């Protein structure tokens, strides 16, 4: 029916389990959270609805329940280099990427969607972004990205892939469309951009060139103090 992967099996157990894993082991500093309530809020965002009609604000309650402080100077935004980011961020110890927050942690690498007029999850297939923009997963990440940007402060870091097809700063993209517009200028002291090429990969983009130049200009116009470094050690 749809072209994308269906809902991940045992989604409820995985989400609830990750929620408790996060508050008990990964980052107990966030305090007590009601993981069953969080699962309900998450599920209610998309079940019993047309899977092409899910909007970011449908996840508002889920975000309310999972929100916690992001320590200043620890935000790490990224495009096209998730594995590198995870290893660099060191599970929140060095940096706290979106995937290291409670709301990002529970959804990472999972797929889900519902169906109209039925409380069930669709395990067969889910719509891709191409089939419809307002699908459950994309809207989730839009809401999560917006929230993450709104609560970031201090020095923020952006890790871009200088070997990516089409440029290091993708437009359209999550960083361009959902994160930059939601950064709180009065809370941010500096934006540090790192452009890293794949080892033995092509050097398609770098500081001061092409898409990265577009990004630097945009951020400076918005009034931010911006620095950029190539191939971070």
């Amino acid at each position: 029916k749809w072209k994308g992967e269906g809902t991940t099996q045992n989604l409820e157990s995985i989400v609830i389990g990750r929620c408790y894993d996060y508050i008990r082991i990964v980052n107990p500093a966030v305090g007590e959270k009601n993981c069953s309530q969080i699962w309900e809020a998450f599920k209610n965002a998309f079940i019993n609805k047309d899977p092409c009609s899910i909007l970011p604000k449908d996840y508002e309650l889920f975000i309310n329940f999972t929100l916690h402080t992001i320590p200043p100077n620890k935000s790490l935004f990224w495009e096209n280099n998730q594995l590198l980011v995870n290893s660099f961020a060191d599970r929140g110890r060095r940096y706290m990427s979106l995937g290291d927050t409670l709301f990002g942690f529970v959804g990472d690498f999972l797929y889900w969607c519902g169906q109209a007029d039925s409380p069930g999850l669709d395990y067969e297939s889910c719509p891709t972004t191409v089939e419809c923009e307002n699908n459950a997963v994309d809207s989730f990440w839009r809401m999560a990205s917006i929230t993450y940007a709104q609560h970031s402060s201090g020095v923020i870091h952006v890790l871009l892939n200088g070997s990516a097809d089409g440029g290091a700063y993708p437009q359209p993209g999550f960083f361009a469309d959902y994160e930059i517009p939601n950064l709180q200028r009065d809370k941010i002291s500096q934006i540090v951009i790192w452009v890293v090429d794949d080892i033995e990969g092509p050097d398609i983009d770098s500081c001061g060139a092409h898409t990265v130049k577009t990004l630097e200009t945009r951020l400076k116009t918005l009034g931010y103090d911006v620095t950029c470094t190539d191939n971070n050690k």
Partner: protein
Amino acid sequence: MPLPQGSARARQRTVLLVGIAVLLAALVLAVVLASLLTHGRHEVSPQMLKWKDRGTTKNLQEVILGRCYNYITAQHPELGDKDCLKIWESLKDAFIYKNPCNITPEDYQPLMELASHPVPCNKSLFWSKTGDLAHRYTKSNQNFLTLEDTLLGYMADKVSWCGDPSAPGINYESCPKRSECESNPGSVFWKMASKMFAEAACGVVQVMLNGSVEAGAFRSSSIFGSVEVFNLDPDKVSEVHIWLMQDIGGPQSESCSGHSIQRLISILEERKFKIICEDNYRPVQLLQCVHNPDHTDCRLCTNST
């Protein structure tokens, strides 16, 4: 007490009432005395044993189940036939309601059987005193697996559990430290899981040791030194590669020519394994350099792009 009817029956009833009242009073007195005497142990679970280490992880069931499903569904679909509910039940049955100083390998046998799975040859990575670094390495290089990257280790990593004979059978307040008793649920679990991980290894195996530890990189008292080394199967394992990692800018207590390493090498050679030892194996050192990019040891080659 006034006796308006002065009949014998009424007197009997009064005696009965007085008797009951006296009995009740005695009962209340006994309860009060008992609670006073056991006052010191009047907490949430007044009868549970007290230990020195942290208690069972709260929401243990949800965490274990979630991790199991996460592992087999989202990360290793080839293990799709594993039954996570059964696995959780077998873990729980291993320790619930039992005295946490009396745990035996037999207690964990059903769990080990349900949750174990083969490890591809040449991919086993053992470690001792280098846990953080070893796991960062396997996260970035999926060509190697530590015990904590297998289903059993993944579920149990950083989690603690122990039981108690009194209800509810799980002790969330405290659990025994190894120094209090060796046959505690955690120690027995990791010893068994490590033994099986070593037995399952084949081909070339790797071990990451810490060359900045004062007590020596290889210690016979570690799980690696006491369990894993002796459970590698010489019919399956051909070579052992030792990666001797020193902290960047840290003490260089030992290198491949060091005392304890020589001891390890002789133990392994006696068991007919071929050994290669490498000081500061570069791919792993690069990971250490992420935290120390300006150190001389972390300078990149000048002729790379």
